[in-house]
């Protein structure tokens, strides 16, 4: 396409929606109306205070890229993967009430709702325990014309179902924007392990929405390897008694990166457990943001919620904003939260050097050790190995670590 096809994000919203089932048209119309009314976020929008989206709002993008993530793995038995567009044509009732289950979306998520053309629906039916990970990836094009894609993925796991999803968001030259929405619906006692890797050099805005029925378990490990502008929001709605979620993340930033992780866990039912552990290594002139919220509703007694964000600040010119917080309306709960920003421990560094480890190597060991524990929680060994490798390759003098680990 040519320059003439480029539009700002808001200008690309159509005036009316007349394709697909009525309920989808209604969702899209509502999302577009909200966007027209509120616009995209600015520095004055509380949840976007630290995310410099101004340039995104003003830029013009083409829509040449493919929205649909690619399925990389052979499809394990017990899983169906269908194109969203195809299902919306042939059996739209199957998706009714499943898209935007979390309520009307705002801002970039609303853009996705209004504008996604296609996507993936991954369904693991009740009772189906799938051991082999399902691997999908979205690769932004590396053309110089700025482009936008709206990947959309719906995961449904029935009662007692189990799956592992590995998602990679990759590629992308400077002006490419991927604005994705992933929705996850976990039935009673369903289990999902979700590994998500961001290695996109361009612009990424991603949202993951999870709703969990009783006794379900959602474990997410996010690894973010830089990014010119990355904003990742994950929200877990613990709706059924005894559900649990664990949100872990590691981010490495350098240069002029801006990397922004937001979590929101809502304890809506009693006896649920949530944990969050995010760790970042922040270098160069980069900025990292962690904003984590846990909301415990009044009826969610016997809640246990923990939240921790630790950062290693490796340069004077880098910036970290960290804000873990809890809003608790129930009284019988166990909650904790904490955040730290610090430099490498000089006593540890001296210990290693005094035993003969050269300084650079010792620094690399300590840096790697800081985030390795996050990746260690990935239970699928090949994936864990790949993520370790990704971290090592980003750490100064990482090559030497490779030889001793």
């Amino acid at each position, binding site marked *: 396409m040519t320059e003439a096809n480029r539009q700002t994000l808001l200008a690309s919203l159509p005036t009316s929606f007349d394709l697909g089932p009525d309920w989808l048209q209604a969702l899209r119309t509502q999302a577009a109306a909200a966007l027209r009314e509120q616009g995209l976020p600015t520095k004055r929008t509380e949840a976007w205070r630290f995310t410099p989206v101004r340039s995104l709002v003003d830029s013009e993008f083409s829509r040449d890229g493919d929205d649909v993530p690619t399925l990389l793995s052979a499809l394990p038995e017990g899983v169906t993967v269908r194109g969203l567009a195809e299902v919306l044509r042939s059996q739209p009732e199957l998706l009714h009430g499943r898209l935007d289950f979390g309520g009307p979306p705002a801002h970039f998520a609303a853009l996705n709702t209004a504008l996604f053309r296609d996507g993936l629906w991954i369904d693991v039916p009740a009772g189906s325990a799938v051991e082999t990970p399902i691997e999908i990836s979205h690769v932004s094009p590396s053309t110089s014309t700025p482009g936008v894609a709206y990947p959309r993925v719906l995961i449904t796991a029935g009662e007692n179902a189990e799956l592992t999803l590995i998602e990679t968001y990759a590629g992308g030259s400077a002006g490419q924007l991927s604005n994705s929405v992933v929705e996850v619906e976990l039935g009673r006692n369903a289990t999902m392990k979700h590994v998500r890797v961001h290695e996109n050099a361009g612009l990424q805005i991603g949202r993951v929405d999870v709703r969990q029925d009783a006794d379900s378990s959602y474990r997410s490990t996010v690894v973010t390897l830089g990014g010119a502008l990355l904003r990742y929001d994950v929200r877990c709605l613990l709706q059924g008694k005894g559900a649990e979620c664990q949100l872990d993340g590691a981010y490495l930033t350098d240069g002029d990166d801006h990397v922004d992780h937001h979590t929101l866990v809502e304890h809506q039912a009693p006896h649920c457990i949530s944990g969050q552990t995010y760790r970042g290594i922040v270098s160069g002139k980069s900025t990292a943001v962690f904003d984590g919220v846990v909301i415990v509703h009044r009826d969610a007694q016997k809640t246990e919620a923990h939240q921790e964000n630790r950062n290693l600040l490796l340069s004077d010119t880098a910036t970290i904003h960290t804000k873990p917080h809890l809003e608790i309306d129930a009284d019988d709960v166990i909650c904790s939260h904490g955040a730290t920003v610090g430099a490498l421990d*000089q006593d*540890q560094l001296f210990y290693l*050097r*005094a*035993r003969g480890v050269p300084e650079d190597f010792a620094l690399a*060991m300590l840096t790697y050790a800081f985030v390795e524990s996050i990746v260690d929680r990935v239970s699928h060994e090949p994936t864990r190995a790949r993520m370790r490798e990704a971290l090592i390759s980003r750490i100064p003098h990482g090559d030497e670590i490779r*030889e*001793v680990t």
Partner: protein
Amino acid sequence: MLKIEDLHVEVDGKPILKGINLEIEAGQVHAIMGPNGSGKSTLAYVLAGREGYEVTKGSVLYKGQDLLEMAPETRAAEGVFLGFQYPVAIPGVSNIYFLKAALNAIRKHRGEDPLDAIDFMKLSKKKAALVQLPDELTKRSVNDGFSGGEKKRNEIYQMAMLEPSLAVLDETDSGLDIDALKVVARGVNGLRGPDRAMLVITHYQRLLDYIVPDVVHVLINGQIVRTGDKDLAKQLEREGYSEVRSASQP
């Protein structure tokens, strides 16, 4: 092996060591005893090259070279080992991998080939057995969740792996029961030899029953006030530091 002359050291502008003279020959074991705060650990850290210790006067020669000019890792590569009074825990860094990195860096410095994984593991098993450090602990994160005694045994295990020429052991005995003390002493004695020297820092005479020193120094308030043979340690035990100090006054 080691020659310290008129060494003055300040920390945060405060004089801590006030003119230390000490010479250790190859094959010797020297002990330094002294009350808390007298500057024993400061001396150990200065020898190992820790930052924050400013040498305002004096010199330290190690095998004829200026030790104070060397980076900590170069000192280690040249054969200097410090057993820490308070070994730091390093979560996420495996004991054995870090030690392999250290040993191979030292070997490289000496122009030797790196040990391969199999030879390294063999060596590790042997040395861990020497100080009765469970194999499992050698693989854990450095000192992470180790008891006080396990940390000290880990120090001696590492020393045995690295086979230094000059070992400075800073209160390796503190916090050990008598059995653990014997184990540590066995590790240290196993390393004694004509080409090695040791500087054993201790607060109590007890350790010196098991690691018998050739020379004993008494360090008080940043100065060596007495030097003698192993009987000096016994005398200290009986009479206390104040007696020894006043006896040293002319």
